[in-house]
């Protein structure tokens, strides 16, 4: 997974991938984005000693506490193991970094339906910025009514007053 295999073994990487999926499970999302996410975390840890230490330490502790390696543990069990460790530096690091890289992965964008850059395509002016049709077309001008600056809304708006 990383060229620096003295730092992270194949088993380490497989466990981190399983944890990444347990943290941010998306049914139907292939392994590739999770693999890339873990590769990014590992390459960062390979130049940040404190991060490497935190990850390594956390993996060792987690394996000791679990019945099997994370890579061969089901998601629900892993999620419980993670929940039990929410306050730890290991959990904080792996959660934050997994979210950071996973949701910056363009395959994940496509999976969720976020298209990314738009300027080069002319924006959305002619590509559906206003294509929502399941609600009526609203007013875009400001209301002609006076808004009181101090005190309750006028009696034209009893609903709001009642609900406030």
């Amino acid at each position, binding site marked *: 997974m990383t060229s620096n295999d003295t730092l992270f073994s194949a088993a380490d990487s497989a466990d981190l991938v399983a944890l990444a999926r347990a943290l941010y499970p998306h049914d139907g999302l292939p392994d590739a984005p999770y693999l890339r996410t873990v590769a990014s975390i590992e390459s960062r840890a390979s130049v940040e000693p404190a991060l490497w230490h935190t990850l390594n330490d956390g993996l060792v502790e987690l394996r000791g506490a679990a019945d099997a390696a994370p890579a061969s543990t089901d998601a629900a069990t892993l999620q419980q193991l993670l929940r039990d460790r929410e306050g730890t530096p290991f959990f904080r690091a792996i959660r934050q970094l997994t979210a950071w890289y996973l949701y910056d992965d363009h395959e994940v964008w496509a999976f969720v339906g*976020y298209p990314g850059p738009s300027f080069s395509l002319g*924006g959305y002016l002619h590509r559906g910025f206003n*294509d*929502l049709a399941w609600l009526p077309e609203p007013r875009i001008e400001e209301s002609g*009514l006076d808004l009181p600056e101090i005190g309750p809304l006028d009696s034209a*708006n009893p609903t709001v007053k009642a*609900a406030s």
Partner: protein
Amino acid sequence: MTQYALDDTDVAVIIGSGPGGATLALQLALKGFRIVMLEAGPWVANEDFVNDERAAFDQLSWTDPRLATGSWALARNFPASPAWMGKVVGGTATFWTGLTPRFKNHEFRTRSVYGEIADASLADWPIGIDELASYYDRAEVAMGTSHRQGRPPMPANNNYKVLANGAERAGYRHYATGPYATNVEEYDGRPGTLQDGFCQQGDKSRAKWSPLVSEIPKALATGQLELRTNSQAVQVTLDAGGRADGVVYADEHGALHRQRAALVAVAGNAIETPRLLMLSGTSAHPDGLANSSGQLGRNYMRHTTGVVYAEFDQEVHMYRGEPMAGIINDESRHDPDRGFAGGYYMEMIAQGLPSFTTFMEPGGWGPDFTAKVEAYTRTAGIWICGEDLPRASNRVTLSATLKDHLGLAAPEVHSDDHENDLAMLEHAYAQGERVFRAAGSRRVTRAPAMPSGHNLGTARMSAAASDGVVNSYGQTHDIPNLFVSDGSIFTTGAAANPTLTIMALVLRQAEYITANHGSI
């Protein structure tokens, strides 16, 4: 570009090229002043902006060390990054969204209108809406803001259709797509919006107003302005008589230079401005320049804020079109019957997937979280923007431990939520949820504050020198040729987004400087 010598003593030095500094530069340049502008960040041209949230953040933001302390959510969620500001020509407005409501009359007189509120340092401004009205007009013209001064309204995008229909069904009446400082059609030599959705990353098309596409090039064209980029002011110096006589700044290599000056205006935004004045402290001014009142750095405000996201059964695609072209004003009034003083706006918000996943539930994970992520294209958002109360103990100070790349003390930003802020936020969350449920949402999420884009109050304006740092013209009470030209000078924060008011105040300041420069 015009160049001035470091020992030219007759120049005005303006620190910061955001809306405050750039507005002052243009007005003074038009009147023939010789101006050096120091901007800590680089010039980034519109075509070099990137349609990518992470890359754009790194390209445009102020990422020097900061530390947040106190009970506010940001000290928990983003302690190293309590505020989001620009470090680039054009300042934070290179990636602002552009809503431009004016203050209301009573928002200049909150101590009188709201009365005494415990643990708050409310005060009336030394000026009111009448003195500012004509400057508001001019600011709206300068920005070409929609719905104002003959500019057409923004069209509705999908996210707005949800907001407006929800508002209408919830009984609100005062909603619209602006005022919003982006061109609907060609104006001031800039095109109409492409509805491309990216503006918090810098607007490549130039449809959105910012100093980068307006005041800065116009000021440069006068031949009166020299803009020095990558130049971070580190000290304002005083002469023996106690007047400002220069600014020391670090260039991109960290080498220091000293520019002499006849007048200095600081417009670094409400964290860097008080920090610079504190860093400029001398044995004669140990607590920082212009701080005889002890108010410098205090009364830090950043609006009562949070986000409501809502999922719908059908598609919204909030990322399409202008991200914040929608506002509900009904709750912006002061109505103590709601259980708090002051008011708030509900403003439309849209984010790309990276920001959405970062801010929707900071620290969130697991299947509930990913279900919300998968609903991204069916999600709409409301950003809450309400008046927060000033408190003397909410303040910017110099850190005793944290340093920046120059070895200078980093700013610490301390803020505790006032109970009035919390009551307002609770009300706003509930009303935001009502709006979205009325539009048909089945699941709503309350998100906490994002790093503050509105930063105010740390060099407060006051009539008496003992109560604040500057007078109504932003002139420091202590040093007549030292001015503050940004939101630091707000006495109180009002509910409105601040930039139009910053510009109006600086337009007034520029007239004052022009009329009185012989005597200041």
